[in-house]
């Protein structure tokens, strides 16, 4: 399978994929989305993300474990706790 140039998706709060292809998501994210790319990028891509509207209006996102094969994206509330109610939109782009 050819290396992707871009992968984008929307992931529901429960980890099911609302839209997008070319990736899988670990079960029961509860605010911690473990995203695995189905076909690895040539190198770690750039990943940007935005949380959807969950139970709280003020969620923020960050990422970790960025690699050619996947990334962890976190959605947290203003108290710093993982937000299990917000969906996630992300774009991963090859560099």
């Amino acid at each position, binding site marked *: 399978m050819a290396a992707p140039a871009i992968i984008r998706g929307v992931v529901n709060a429960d980890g099911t994929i609302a839209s997008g292809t070319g990736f899988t998501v670990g079960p029961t994210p509860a605010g911690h989305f473990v995203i695995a790319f189905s076909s690895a990028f040539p190198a770690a891509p750039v990943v940007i993300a935005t949380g959807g509207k969950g139970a709280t209006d003020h969620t*923020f996102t960050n990422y970790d474990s960025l690699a050619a094969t996947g990334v962890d994206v976190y959605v947290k509330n*203003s108290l*710093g706790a993982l937000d299990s109610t917000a969906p996630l939109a992300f774009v991963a782009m090859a560099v």
Partner: protein
Amino acid sequence: MPRSRRIGLQRGREIAPRHPAQTSGGGQHGRGTGKGQGATHGQGKGAGRGAGTAAVSAFAAITAKAAAGIVNQPNSLAILRGVINTDGTVASGTGFTVGPAPAGHFVISFAPAFAAAPVVIAIGGKGSTNRTYVNYDALAATGVDVYLYTHDGILDPNTPLAFVAVGGTLPGDLPIIRGVINTDGTVASGTGFTVGPAPAGHFVISFASAFAAAPVVVATGGKGSTNRALVNYDALATTGVDVYLHTSSGPLDPNTPLAFVAVGAG
């Protein structure tokens, strides 16, 4: 590029001439179907490609979609993306430089410059705090300043940055709409969408030409009166999306502009 070289350049929200159709306050038109998560899910799965991505009548479709602001033909690559380490070294990406010792304030210079100020979206990495806030300022064709703040409102020197600057088309064959919206709802840059009037932190974005399936929308707030605006989206549909900017204490933030990118299915 030193900040002094950018002084005097127009910022993004002042550069692009506003298309009359973009400021008509279209608001929620065409949004009757597709509000709420359930609708989002249904639209996001397997709806197939839009007309412009099909091979049939390719030229006419591309022309029509380009006129509507959806650019999907494979074309010159007017996009930069990168990951920047906390010390300002570039972890990945090319076509830009970063000022030294950012300490949470990343002065990014594009090389070469875009034709006009691009849309810049960004996200902080996982640093010593789990609550970094991203915003941008001094958006220009030649560069942008991106800030990472802690929850306490001070610059965060311990968090890397990932960003994408979109000035034209995406690689491949993906439909995309991108834009920068001023706090008063006027369109600073971008085409193919309208914004409801007087957003006051709640931006009702309607796509001029619907996507074939609900796109992925990512967004970043600009630098407003607070450094800690939080972004989220709702009512994601083929025809539009609502994007919210909240202050860290919860209320809508009426003083922060918005940059967004909507990427459809390839």
